């Protein structure tokens, strides 16, 4: 900070007064402009207060023994009892482990997929072909998990799926894809890749087009083949994007989408497929243990917040921070 102040310019008195007046005028003009804006904004404030902040405060039921008669405010406080109960159950540890396992696998296999596909698409020189492939691979993004779950259950079903029909022909008996831990996880992860791989390329393709084409020309003059060009030009060109998207993805590691698990889950594999969101649904909403499941939800949200903030802190180190 510069501590030595510039000496104020001696102002004629009239100018000071007019400046004061102008400020007042400006202030009242600003107020007049703000009245319609505030009126417009009022419903927005009500929305955020009711459906975002009231539920955030409603998380206090995690520290209470909630019941319908006494409501959120009347129910008795129980301190950390719900958390103690939650973490004394062996099931809880398993659920958190499943959540982490599935989302880390999603990250490891799902994250590089759009990068690879974007590089391949970028090297496709026939525009019609490239457009056609793009149109096809973007499509699954728009389907919800009911559609994809329905497709997966049909294709891999024991009795009638066509894959098991072939397997039965070769080995004599069908393979229970959806009832074995390993194959269930593999199907879970690959269906996620199937849905989002194509759509994920959009952002990488946009960044690749911003790479200066003369770099490729001169590399090619120098005798660099396609692999070397990709390795030394394309990949470094999209590296900042890769870093920022990777950091954002690690921030979401506590979240495994409810819909996907809910559609593919079955009782046989519940010991590896039950995740935090499905637990909250089953125990909280179906089992009416509101306080216990709210404690789980609060735990998830807090860890998620810490992860996002530290991911952003990391991103800042790369000059890519979001906020």
């Amino acid at each position, binding site marked *: 900070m510069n501590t030595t102040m510039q000496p104020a310019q001696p102002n004629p008195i009239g100018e000071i007064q007019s400046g004061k007046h102008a400020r007042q005028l400006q202030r009242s003009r600003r107020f007049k402009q703000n009245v319609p804006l505030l009126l417009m904004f009022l419903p927005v404030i009500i929305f955020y207060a009711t459906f975002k902040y009231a539920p955030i405060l409603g998380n206090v039921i995690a520290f209470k023994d909630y019941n319908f008669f006494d409501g959120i405010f009347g129910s008795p406080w129980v301190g950390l009892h719900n958390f103690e109960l939650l973490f004394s159950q062996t099931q809880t540890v398993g659920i958190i482990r499943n959540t982490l396992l599935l989302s880390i696998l999603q990250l490891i296999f799902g994250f590089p997929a759009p990068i690879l596909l974007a590089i391949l698409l970028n*090297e496709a020189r026939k525009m019609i072909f490239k457009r056609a492939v793009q149109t096809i691979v973007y499509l699954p993004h728009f389907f919800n998990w009911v559609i994809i779950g329905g*497709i997966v259950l049909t294709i891999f079903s024991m009795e009638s799926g066509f894959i098991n029909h072939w397997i039965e022909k070769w080995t004599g008996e069908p393979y229970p894809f959806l009832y074995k831990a390993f194959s269930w996880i593999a199907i879970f992860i690959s269906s996620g890749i199937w849905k989002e791989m194509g759509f994920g390329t959009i952002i990488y393709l946009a960044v690749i087009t911003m790479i200066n084409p003369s770099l490729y020309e001169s590399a090619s003059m120098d005798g660099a083949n396609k692999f070397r060009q990709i390795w030394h030009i394309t990949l470094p060109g999209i590296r900042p994007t890769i870093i920022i998207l990777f950091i954002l993805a690690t921030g979401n590691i506590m979240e495994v989408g409810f819909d996907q698990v809910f559609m593919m889950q079955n009782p046989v594999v519940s010991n590896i497929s039950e995740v935090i969101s499905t637990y909250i649904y089953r125990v909280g909403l179906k089992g009416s243990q509101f306080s216990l499941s709210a404690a789980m939800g609060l735990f998830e949200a807090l860890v998620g917040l810490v992860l996002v903030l530290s991911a952003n802190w990391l991103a800042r180190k790369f000059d890519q921070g979001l906020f």
Partner: protein
Amino acid sequence: MKASYGDKVFYAVNYTVLTIIALTCLFPLVHIAALSLSDSSAIMSGLVTIWPKGWSLEAYGALLQGTNILGAFKNSLIITLVGVVLSMLLTTLAAYPLSRKYFYARKSFTLLMVFTMLFGAGMIPTYLVVKSLGLIDTYFALWLPGLISTYNMLVMKSFFENLPEELQEAARIDGCGEIKILARIILPLSLPMLATLSLFYGVQYWNAFMNVLIYINESDKYNLSVLVQQMVQSQSVMQELSDFQPEDIQNITPQSIKSAGVMVMVIPMLLVYPFLQKYFVKGVLIGSIKG
């Protein structure tokens, strides 16, 4: 420029891999479509892959007669259309004031909104709020809690901020109030962005699943997602068809009727897909550059 031998190999491999990936994306859909159009004997013997065997529309017939799929389709349409209108209205009401530099406390309001993106309230407390407002079993339970997507709001806000100032100043000097400036100048200049965000919301409402599962208990209010989910996961989908007549439906199998249910969700998406693709690609890029 002549391609070297290595590059020729590279291109050949590249086109092959891309073709395989595209086919992998397409195959499950074609397979399901084929199943929904095949007759039961072909399905039972596992002959159906990408082309229907023994053409039969009976699965769709049974779906229309035996389930409430038309009602669910209508419900999905209502949820989507009303939802998009409400969401766009509120998102505009949020984004416009926040994009004005002279708006009081715009920084703090924006911060409070962004915070809700980082720290979700959770399923249970949100459910209790919705329940205490008496919204269970009404579509307001689907519309209100997600009325504004903060992400979409930020996209709209930064779009408004980047519109040229001159026109707005001129209008202000001519005596236009805030609402007139918004309606006559800002919104007409933002039509492509508004279309993009409407489609974002539209896809979100059309695909709504978890909220319907949580908030809607009456089965005649289900949307397509939940109706089809219950069919797909049912062990006894044939028995659940109302007006169940064994001889009527001997030519359909659980797979064909489940596939037909999935197709009823896929087909409307395919019909609007040209618009979706065009505007979503734009939207992803707007959102990623200025978010």
